[in-house]
């Protein structure tokens, strides 16, 4: 059984193709780390996988309602408290894992603090706790550990390991080492080529010729 499979995917940002020919499959219990220099197209790829934008070519296959996405920005409401933020997402996803999520991400002391009064790292931990309350099996994460300190990175590693042990899967774009035993996919070879060199055409190009 494959939780997420991507075949011959080409993605575009603002209409410009950035990656093409990307393919991989995530089995339960596996994590895949995406690497590549700044601007190669990791964010664009993840947004496509999460279903936020359509692929230029190729397919993304995942069980319905199995994927959850964590972006650069955390979707944290600064006027709500930590507990209120998490409770909201738990209700949206229909789970009741707020207390355990706070315990796991070391947020218990901050439960009644308004999110506006969190430090950058604390806010990030809250953003990651949201993944825990989603109850989903496939986590798609964009630089999840930006501005986390060493202890929190380890905490996060442990959480992801638990997800994998429970039969989930993770797709992570990151520049730093997470201490996870995961496959690594370097995106550099998949950089979109010019049309003359076998690159994908956008719908407009297609129509034009």
């Amino acid at each position: 059984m494959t939780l997420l499979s991507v075949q011959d995917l080409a993605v575009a940002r603002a209409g410009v193709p950035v990656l093409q020919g990307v393919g991989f499959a995530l089995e339960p219990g596996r994590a895949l780390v995406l690497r590549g220099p700044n601007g190669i197209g990791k964010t664009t790829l993840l947004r496509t996988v999460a279903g936020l934008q359509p692929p230029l070519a190729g397919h993304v296959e995942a069980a319905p309602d199995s994927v959850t996405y964590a972006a650069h920005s955390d979707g944290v409401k600064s006027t709500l408290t930590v507990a209120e933020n998490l409770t909201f997402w738990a209700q949206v996803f229909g789970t009741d894992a707020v207390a355990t999520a706070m315990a796991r991400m070391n947020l218990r002391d901050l439960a009644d603090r308004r999110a506006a009064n969190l430090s950058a790292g604390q806010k990030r931990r809250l953003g990651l706790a949201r993944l825990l309350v989603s109850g989903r099996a496939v986590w798609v994460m964009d630089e999840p550990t930006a501005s986390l300190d060493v202890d929190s990175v380890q905490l996060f590693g442990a959480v992801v390991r638990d997800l994998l042990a429970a039969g989930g899967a993770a797709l992570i774009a990151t520049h730093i080492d997470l201490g996870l035993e995961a496959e690594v996919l370097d995106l550099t070879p998949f950089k979109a080529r010019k049309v003359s060199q076998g690159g994908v055409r956008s719908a407009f190009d297609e129509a034009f010729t």
Partner: protein
Amino acid sequence: MSIWEYANPKKFMQTTGFLLPWVSGLAGLTLAVGLIWGYFFTPDADKFASTVKIIYLHVPAAMMAISAWTMMLVTSLIWLIRRHHVSALAAKAAAPVGLVFTVIGLVTGAIWGQPMWGTWWAWDPRLTAFLILALFYLGYIALWAAVENPDTAADLTSVLAIVGSVFAFLSRYAVLFWNQGLHQGASLSLDKEENVADVYWFPLLVCITGFVLLFVALVLARTRTEIRARRLQALIARERVA
């Protein structure tokens, strides 16, 4: 010993803790005397008939609405110049009281206007300026409520009180220019001009005193609350840090 010692929260709490019951009692007493005197024991006036009794509510409330803003302006200035927290908190405490007085002025005026001028509301300069004053109160209170950090809020609202005062003053003259109104001119002053007879003047004076005392009592009580709330907030925050 200087007056600024009372700007120390602890000293302020001690002194006002002693004063507050007396001021409140006196306020209640004066108000009761004034209103009962005015309502039960004054005759009707020619032009106003029995509605003259509204004057005991309307005029003191209108005067205090303006005085409360003035007091907020002064305490705001003190906060900006000398950074006494009690001063800023007193301004914060006074605003809702001032707003209530303004609303009383507006409501009693409107109720009075119906029999006298045949309309609840007219765009008379004094009335308009008063409505604008109510808007300034609303904005001031909303700004306090919207800013979380108390010192930031105190600074911002103080600046607003100063700039707002200038513009409220300008509005007052602008509306005079814009419309000649229906409303009574200033016929009362403390040295009592001829067109108010003693029968109305004395109870009115008592009522005004009552409103002043009530304002003082309310502001003291509310300032005490604000000081405690401020300290409460600091203690809770400190607990979290520890």
